[in-house]
């Protein structure tokens, strides 16, 4: 695992893309095939299932380090990452472990599934004893999952392409779909033309950038197609032969989580792949993202949930038609196939994302201002003659989101932050007025400069009213403008509302507390 830990250190030590790719390329040139397969799996969100409960890991790490569980937990709160916290608190290694390959460690960890708790503990303590900090961190990550090395799948594929001298797009396609890193060989995965499970393979999603200048910079409006940007889960619905698959953008196979779309897919013509947005649709209307959240993360869906939050696919593109990859065709031609497909299927669960009629950019600005009432996040602009790209490439597709909603709110609670902000109070709870009472309605952690965070921190320390564990209530004196993308009713919140992506837009030094917004102001935004 030394090689992999070194790869990790090299990637972690730089923020330069080229240096990261070079480190990965080097790794792909020297690592054993089985380790390479696992590295590809880890960097494309295919981590093995967790076999050791993290609560136990924390207990064992605290015990081995000679500190109390509470102190371990506080340290964890500061570091913000369990694998790292454990790697940092453990005492220095006492023995040199025999070097073991990455794949061997992973497979041993997977095999812990059916082992007694005592044996798990013995295995892990022994592993920790023989590792340095970097190896421990990697090892812990393998156990806890969520392996992020600061390298996107795209960069990994680029490095792999350089190491193997294979074109990136075709590699990208080869590593998609369903494959098991434990059984597949490196040759089967990447070098053989017809790899396993070809039927399930999705295409890489084409991603858009947010427009950064005036929309007029895009040139002639007649070159562009506009649609609303739907706020759901990006999905690819596949029918090949009699088999159907639904992939989410995170490259997760989610066919079984959305049985209604599975059913819908059976109606598609064979050899058809659609790209679109999964949305909750009820009573003839798109519903809030909150409702969609009740469908995420659940492997099995109850009847009640299906009734409460039924989904549709708002389709905007066809990638494969009649068994042929048609991504190279211009958008308008692909859209013609899409219209044909939607009409033929004739099912409420498959809707075409309509294009917006406009002739000037001014028209489009008006349309964009209706986005919230349409339950969209803004507009998508796509060049009419462009092919369907791979990954995130600037130029042909743009997001043009609506400006965020804002309210002025009062800071009433503060908690210490994580990592760099560990010794500063940077996690805040905000309130708005309800009569002469301040009602908390959201938390926010981001949006201030470091200098501002330090000033607020000093304020919090000097104006603490009460302490509850790590939280301090503070004198209601500071007002901040809170920006957010959406607002929905919520019975789980005291205020009755839940915000989407709240953050601090600016510190309103100019506003006295009395002039902060009221709960009624918030409710009118619903």
């Amino acid at each position, binding site marked *: 695992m030394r090689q992999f830990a070194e790869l990790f250190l090299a990637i*972690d*030590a*730089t*923020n*330069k893309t080229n240096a990261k790719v070079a480190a990965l390329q080097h790794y792909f040139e020297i690592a054993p095939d089985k380790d390479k397969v696992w590295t590809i799996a880890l960097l494309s969100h295919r981590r093995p299932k967790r076999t050791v409960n993290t609560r136990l890991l924390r207990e064992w790490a605290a015990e081995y*380090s000679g*500190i*109390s569980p*509470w*102190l*371990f937990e*506080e*340290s964890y709160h*500061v*570091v*913000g*990452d369990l694998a*790292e*916290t454990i790697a*940092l*608190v453990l005492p220095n290694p006492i023995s040199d472990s025999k070097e073991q390959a990455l794949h061997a460690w992973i497979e041993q960890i997977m095999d812990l599934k059916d082992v007694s708790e005592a044996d798990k503990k013995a295995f892990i303590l022994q592993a920790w004893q023989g590792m340095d900090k970097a190896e421990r961190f990697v090892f812990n990550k393998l156990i806890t999952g969520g392996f992020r090395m*600061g390298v996107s799948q795209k960069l990994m594929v680029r490095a792999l392409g350089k190491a193997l001298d294979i074109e990136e797009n075709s590699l990208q396609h080869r590593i998609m779909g369903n494959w098991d890193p434990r059984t597949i060989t490196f040759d089967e995965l990447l070098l053989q033309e017809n790899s396993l499970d070809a039927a399930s393979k999705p295409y890489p999603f084409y991603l858009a950038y947010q427009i950064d200048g005036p929309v007029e910079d895009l040139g002639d409006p007649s070159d562009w197609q506009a649609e609303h940007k739907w706020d759901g889960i990006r999905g690819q619905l596949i029918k090949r032969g009699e088999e159907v698959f639904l992939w989410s953008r995170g490259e997760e196979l989610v066919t079984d989580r959305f049985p209604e779309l599975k059913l819908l897919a059976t109606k598609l013509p064979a050899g058809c792949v659609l790209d679109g947005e999964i949305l909750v649709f009820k009573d003839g209307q798109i519903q809030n993202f909150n409702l969609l959240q009740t469908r995420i993360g659940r492997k099995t869906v109850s009847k009640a949930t299906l009734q409460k939050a039924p989904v549709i696919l708002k389709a905007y593109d066809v990638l494969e038609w009649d068994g042929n990859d048609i991504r190279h065709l211009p958008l308008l031609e692909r859209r013609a196939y899409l219209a044909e497909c939607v009409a033929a299927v004739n099912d409420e669960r498959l809707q075409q994302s309509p294009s917006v009629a406009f002739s000037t950019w001014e028209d489009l600005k008006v349309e964009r201002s209706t986005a919230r009432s349409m339950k969209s996040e803004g507009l998508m602009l796509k060049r009419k003659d462009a092919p369907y790209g791979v990954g995130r490439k600037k130029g042909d597709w743009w997001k043009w989101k609506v400006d965020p909603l804002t309210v002025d709110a009062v800071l009433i609670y503060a908690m210490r932050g*994580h*990592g*760099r902000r*560990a*010794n500063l109070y940077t996690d805040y709870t905000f309130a708005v007025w309800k009569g002469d009472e301040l009602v908390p309605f959201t938390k926010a952690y981001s949006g201030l400069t*470091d*200098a501002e965070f*330090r000033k607020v921190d*000093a304020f919090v*320390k000097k104006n603490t009213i009460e302490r509850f564990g790590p939280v301090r209530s503070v004198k209601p004196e500071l007002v901040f403008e809170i920006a957010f993308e959406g607002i929905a009713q919520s019975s789980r919140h005291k205020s009755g509302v839940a915000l989407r992506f709240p953050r601090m837009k600016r510190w309103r030094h100019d506003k006295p507390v009395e002039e902060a917004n009221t709960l009624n102001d918030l409710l009118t935004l619903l």
Partner: protein
Amino acid sequence: MPLLTFKKGGIYCAQADVYIDPWSKVDRAIITHAHSDHARWGHQHYLCTSNCEAPLKHRLGNISVQSMPFREEVVMNGVRISFHPAGHIIGSAQVRVEYQGEVWVVSGDYKLVDDGFATPFESVKCHHFVTESTFGLPVYTWADQQQIFDEINTWWAANRANGKVSIIAAYSLGKAQRLIQNVDHSIGPVFTHGAVENMNAALRAAHHDIQPTIQVTKELDKKSYKGGLVIAPGSALGSSWVNKFKPFSLAYASGWMALRGTRRRRAADRGFALSDHADWDGLNTAIAATGAENIYVTHGYSTLFSNWLKEQGLNAAPVETQYVGESIDVAEEEVAI
């Protein structure tokens, strides 16, 4: 009444009528070291170590200062007061206060490692010990100084080989001199920002030997920076001042760099976990060596660390102060609350 009390304006000795590192303006202040959160402007009279006098005057200008060497004693209304090395930065001291057999030590900021420039830390026996806790969690443990400087030298040499300038952000008092004294000068020339060089000049004038450095000025040819190492305060790095060094590689040297999240959130190329504060083991070792049973924990993880000490059977309590500890963005030297 205890010999020292924690008052609104600072740590106070009523018997001697003197404050230690006060943050309110007072008549007589004993100063542990010249970082600005400990040595504030506006007191009538300052008392510090001999090595602290030059940086203190450099920072605060025309003030009334009296200084004395480490381990020498001054008596104020029967209270015996002396300075003992804290190892934090040049001239940094722990203040020992004794009255009728009761001994208190206020440590200011400290580290146990000999950094090659500051007078190394010396443990002082006492009954009451006031400790900092900037890095008072078990996740903070520093690698050997030599190992860290090996990494810094390797990084610098690699940048030089790639035709880049190496820049390290460091406080102009303390970290800067520690870097200058310990990097491998055979790799290339060491340049300094004006704030660092002025501090160097003040120290050199007070007969402290510092390795040769070249101040960055408009007159210098930009080509001369190539392959060199530039040491500058963090505040200079956000400005256009750094443009003249392009292409460059930027690093931070701070204890906070021990955490991956901190390193990644910096727009820096490298982070070296080099701190002038004691790590977890250092704090615990220092406290045990004092033999003190009463521990007062100031700036840092004061509540958590004092709870840990209580678990170890000591009388420990957190104390609110206005010291700021180690900051990456705004140096200890620049903070003014």
